[in-house]
């Protein structure tokens, strides 16, 4: 970075650890409060910090900066500490070197969120955090490099897709310097002189070779490449948000977006999952669930949710994207086959999906911004730490009437971003008739946007009980 002071900060070897330690302390506090504290979600650190503050801060940081939450990931701190004492033995299996596992886990997390009403359960939220620690220790305890980050972590996959919109990127300053570099420390790591060639600074564990790296996909902002580069030629640089979605070069460690069906599936779960996650909090969903339960003759939530998830994450994208791809092929004259065409244009929906996540999560974050204060006061009081005073339960956040215009703004910007990306893709794909290629995908984006706007304007109705009322 060229900002004075920040460059030295980001080159500081211990920056990541310094950011991770407080988040690890907070994570432990969340686990303890979730397991031992009040069972009422608004009064518990686990639920308040997870479902109000973490989610909201995450999307806002991704919008304004980049994937800094992966930089400060407390799970990786524990993993790195554990790796000082043991070394993983195996490489991640070749057949799993794709996003299918993480796509499934991402959808599973969304499903469990609804099925177990995670937002209302400090106990289950605490166990989700514990499970995350266990999962990363097991995966990265057995497999080399950052296998958990690249192939497993659902939060990481969300961050990767969302960070394609971010204005900052870890990238090379001058490619000519890389051409002259003979050691390629950014990916191989930097080694101490001597016969043993001990690596004293690891290179990129996610297999992103900096000179050929394009964009933020799969980048955790760990800054290992920055520290490893002997020429100080890598930094956090600004860029045009979402520009990486308009191009399709061969990306180091990833390949071409247009040839990655698994990445497109991740983009679909990201974009359509945004609508699904918000849909679960508005009144009409309960009428729909009751109707589905009647049709299926069931009393439990899981089958109904399964049908809803199948409809919104599988059938709806298949119909909308398939139809748009067919129209682009027939009337736009695209020479791509149907599935590759759908794969290519799917990435155009990411800005709209991100707009939806932003609208939803920022709403809870901003309207409940100050609730962390009384919850923390209450947790401290249970430890007999009365120095923070008695909990101010009336402290809430920014009034809803100021936040709602922001939500609509995020949705409008998301639609604008998607239309821009789709237009660029259409111009590159069907140079003779770009508007005919653009129109079907623009229509899909508008349909999703209308659905998102409708949802935002519905009265909120947050229920964990099934078929109640």
């Amino acid at each position, binding site marked *: 970075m060229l900002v004075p002071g920040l460059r030295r900060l980001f080159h500081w070897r211990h920056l990541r650890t310094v950011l991770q330690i407080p988040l690890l302390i907070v994570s432990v506090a969340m686990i303890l409060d979730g397991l031992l504290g009040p069972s009422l979600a*608004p009064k518990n650190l686990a639920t308040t910090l997870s479902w109000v503050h973490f989610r909201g801060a995450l999307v806002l940081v991704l919008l304004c900066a980049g994937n800094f939450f992966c930089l400060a990931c407390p799970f990786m701190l524990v993993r790195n500490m*554990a790796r000082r004492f043991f070394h993983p033995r195996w490489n991640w299996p070749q057949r799993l070197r794709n996003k299918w596992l993480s796509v499934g886990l991402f959808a599973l997390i969304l499903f469990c969120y609804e099925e177990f009403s995670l937002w209302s359960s400090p106990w289950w939220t605490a166990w989700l955090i514990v499970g995350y620690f266990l999962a990363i220790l097991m995966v990265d305890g057995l497999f080399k490099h950052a296998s958990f980050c690249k192939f497993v972590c659902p939060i990481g996959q969300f961050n990767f897709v969302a960070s394609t919109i971010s204005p900052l990127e870890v990238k090379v300053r001058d490619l000519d310097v890389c051409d002259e570099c003979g050691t390629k420390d950014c990916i191989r790591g930097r080694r101490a002189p001597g016969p043993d060639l*001990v690596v004293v600074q690891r290179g990129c564990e996610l297999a992103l070779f900096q000179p050929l790296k394009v964009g933020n996909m799969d980048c955790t902002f760990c800054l290992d490449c920055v520290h490893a580069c002997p020429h100080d030629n890598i930094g956090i640089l600004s860029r045009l948000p979402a520009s990486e979605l308009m191009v399709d070069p061969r990306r180091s460690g990833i390949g071409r977006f247009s040839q990655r069906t698994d990445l497109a599936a991740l983009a679909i779960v990201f974009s359509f999952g945004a609508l699904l996650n918000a849909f679960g909090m508005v009144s009409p969903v309960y009428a729909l669930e009751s109707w589905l339960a009647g049709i299926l003759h069931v009393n439990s939530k899981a089958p109904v949710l399964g049908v809803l998830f199948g409809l919104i994450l599988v059938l709806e994208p298949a119909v909308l994207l398939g139809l748009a791809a067919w129209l682009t092929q027939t009337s736009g004259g695209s020479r791509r086959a149907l599935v590759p065409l759908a794969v290519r244009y799917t990435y155009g929906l990411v800005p709209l999906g991100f707009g939806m996540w932003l609208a939803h999560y920022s709403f809870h974050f901003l309207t409940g911004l100050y609730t962390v204060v009384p919850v923390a006061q209450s947790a401290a009081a249970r430890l007999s730490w009365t120095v923070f005073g008695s909990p101010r339960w009336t402290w809430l956040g920014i009034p809803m009437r100021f936040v709602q215009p922001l939500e609509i703004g995020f949705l409008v910007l998301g639609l604008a971003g998607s239309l821009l990306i789709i237009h660029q893709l259409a111009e590159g794909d069907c140079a003779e008739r770009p508007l005919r290629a653009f129109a079907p995908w623009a229509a899909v984006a508008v349909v999703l946007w209308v659905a998102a706007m409708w949802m935002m304007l519905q009265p909120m*109705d947050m229920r964990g009980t099934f078929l109640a009322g």
Partner: protein
Amino acid sequence: MRTDFTLGSCQEWPSGIFIGFVCVAALLASGCRKPVAPRSDVAIEYGINPQPVLVGRAVLAVNLRDAAGAPVAGARVNLEADMSHPGMAPVFGKTREVAPGQYQGSLAFAMPGDWVVLIHVTLPDGRTLEREINVPGVAAN
């Protein structure tokens, strides 16, 4: 060539032992439960009207009885309602004693959804009690 991120000499523990340790720790942690509050000798009974509960004002009647069944007069009873989702605005209400041991107040449920009502009781002797009541599925008016 040896790849080693540690510069000092550290023992290398087999991965399996470490993972086993982690699993045992997780198993032990699964036994964690918050401490159970001792049972009180004061019974808190309640009623909410209207039924079903709708968005808007609802009247709560709270009866306090001691172990012998006698009404507990002179207590301070405050009401609080929170949504099941964190970060949403709580609502508060006070009560007044309409008869010995009988307290009446109201709460304004601000939106549809699942709510939890907390009845905060301060007894004449200074002891405090609390009771949680689930009020699921508050419907739009």
